[in-house]
């Protein structure tokens, strides 16, 4: 049943044995020990499990391993490089823009991708980009303000 898959995760080449239908999320969390990518729905609807797949923001719960073969993955742990925090993560901490923080990994991945594509986004652009991320504690405005403050530095 299982097959061998090779991919690049946070800059490292890795090989894992998995069922082709297993989600990238399960492989990241269990086989690669990268548990910063959170399970929220398993349906691709909430954004808690967002990763960068060849630079695009995708829900890893809805990405089967057969479709990840040979591709490049960046998770929340690899956003900043060399184990450092990415500037959106630091901005979220500086603004205390979290409560339970379960949604934050996916938000950080999405926001980092936004800043790569649009270095100086407006408040509306940040809000629109993060519209795919759900948050239940109600820190949406804090997150937008924190990223805006970082952009305006």
């Amino acid at each position, binding site marked *: 049943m299982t097959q061998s898959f090779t991919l690049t995760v946070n800059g490292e080449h890795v090989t894992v044995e*998995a*069922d082709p*239908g*297993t*989600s990238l999320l*399960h*492989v990241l*969390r*269990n086989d690669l020990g*990268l*548990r*910063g*990518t*959170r*399970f*929220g*729905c*398993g*349906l691709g*609807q*909430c954004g*808690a499990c967002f990763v960068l797949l060849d630079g695009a923001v995708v829900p890893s719960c809805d990405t089967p391993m057969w479709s990840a073969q040979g591709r490049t993955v960046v*998770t*929340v*742990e690899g*956003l900043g490089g060399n184990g450092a*925090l990415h500037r959106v*993560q630091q901005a*979220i*901490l500086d603004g*205390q823009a*979290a*409560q*339970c*923080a*379960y*949604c*934050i*990994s996916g938000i*950080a991945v999405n926001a980092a991708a936004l800043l790569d594509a649009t270095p100086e986004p407006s408040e509306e652009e940040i*809000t*629109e980009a*993060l*519209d795919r*991320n*759900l*948050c*239940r*504690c*109600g*820190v*949406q*405005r*804090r*997150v*937008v303000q924190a990223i805006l403050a970082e952009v305006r530095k």
Partner: protein
Amino acid sequence: MTGAPVSRHVTVGPDGTIEVRVGKVEIGQGIVTALSQIAADTLGVPPERIRMLPASTRYGPNEGFTAGSLSIATSGPALRAACAQARALFVAEAARRWEVGPGMITVRDGRLSCGDLTTSYGELAESVDLGVPVDPDAAAGAPAEPTGQIGRSLPRLDLPAKVAGRPAYLHDLRLPGQLFGRVLRPPSPGARLLRYGASRLDPQVTVVRDGSFLGVVAADEAGAARALALLRDTAEWDERDTLPDENDLHAYLRSGPHQTIETPTVGEPPATGRRLRARYGRPFIAHASMAPSCAAARWNDDGTLSVWTHSQGIHPLRTAIAGSLGLEESRVHVDHVDGAGCYGHNAADDAAFDAVLLARAVPGRPVLVQWTRQDELTWAPFGSAMSADVSATLDEATGRVTSWEYELWSQGHAARPGFAGAPGLLAGAYLENPLALPAAADPPLERGGGSLRNAVPIYAFPHRRVTGHRLLETPIRSSALRSLGAFMNVFAIESFMDELAGAAGADPLEFRLAHLTDDRARAVLERAAEAAGWGTPPPFEDGGRGIGFAQYKNAGAYCAVVADVEAGRRIRARRLTIAVDVGRVVNPDGVRNQIEGGAVQATSWTLKERVRFDRRRITSGDWESYPILRFSETPHVTVDIVEHPGTPSVGAGEAAQGPTAAALANAVADALDGVRVRDLPLTPEAVMDAING
């Protein structure tokens, strides 16, 4: 707990590290950080010297549930008393060594000093016995030397790991030899399992069946998920139509049988005046945590049982698990590990019992159980639907309300483990020998009530009668959702206050102030109104502005909300301007964050949320069928703290919900020239129905 030793709360190591144990748990509200500030302040040490230990039945104090916005008000003083006594014992030891009076010793920055003499907590640790019982009066006798920790926005202690994406939640726990479990919940409440097919299952997978409880244990998570899918495909159930008509919840809630709850009637009804009446309602609302619940359990070789949970009440959960299985409570150990925000009694406790049942099949091995999104949205308890009739008499000469009658129908709001007279864990009801899963009860009125929480208006009305009816039998499981009945009751009271103000031709703010004698209430209302520019129209098209106010539980935080909404083709909350008085503020940014989050979540409840069902199944099992507020729909929020440093601290987590709902509803009515939606949620369809009469 009276009689518990100081060391149950605080211990000091020879290296000066201070370990603090609390019974309250972190659920994203920042309580552990706020309590660390209280400990640091009372001991006179820098906060970084303090290590906050996770709550555990193995070593920590039993502080019941982390609920009801009570943590800062109850655990704060308990911790302060223990820390004050610890500090006094260390001061006494230094005084003994130096042969000086304790009053001559000062404590600052973790150092104890008297003239040129100086020592530290660490240096004295081995000579001080903290095994003495806590004296509740110790805090009162402690010298007040503020360290500046109270009233400071100390950043949250737990956020760096969570934001960095490190393992931080129970979901991330990986114990030696750990296995992974999944439970196949029935398709509908009351369904019974007839048969299932195991032939295509991986032989390595362990299937656990007990009556209609069916689950799997696998070596890896992907395997457990695959086995669950196979079971779902093959399981056959006996299902019945047991659910009420979702479109007539008023009739359902009023059908009984009920328990009637009376509050003391005030005054006599007037003989004359203009009578007004209205009916308000809210649907069932889901907790809808971002993380489906999770738990781990291990049956140990020595006959003990270990449980890891994100429950809000580890001690009551221990009692419930032991009671469900006939175990000695002392053999069950429950450790808290952080989960996502729960917003009340969600499925955390149920998941823990699932883990216990599955782990029983693999003794010695820990099993981590992960619920699905659908199970979390359909099987966790809901906040109850509610229906209220409110009527009042207006004296048209004075423009004052002379009588107020309020009658409420609701399911109970408290079914936490042990609360309703049974363990109350979901899986128990589906076992071969089923355990009772009683309908939710209500906390007593003197503790804030449940259905009737905030049902008694704060306004000075000459006559008042408030009655509640709690439904005693129901197929839809309800329990505590953040603020319990207050969300609905404040929505109804404050909506009707606007209707009365309209009938009296009065400004809604002035009308409220004319009926308010509590100065703190008036100050909060006036502050919010001033900050929002009350009296001017909102600066956008199709705009409306409304106000809502309450004192949570009529005893806690005062909170006033002014909402600006756009009510055109869609209903959009644009801005919430909030003023709050929580007494003495421990962590100002923590208070703001709780108020902002509570208001935004209440905006989601008010504008969008409604549990959906047909006569057989709950049908809102994903984020498309149960939509919540998105980034683009989230209002701007400002929070103004009205300072009252001389009064006791009260919680902030549940103060904003009711006022937010009312402010939004009043703003929509303002935008629509008085056309009012009285049944939540305030969707565009509900508004169209109201306009069309």
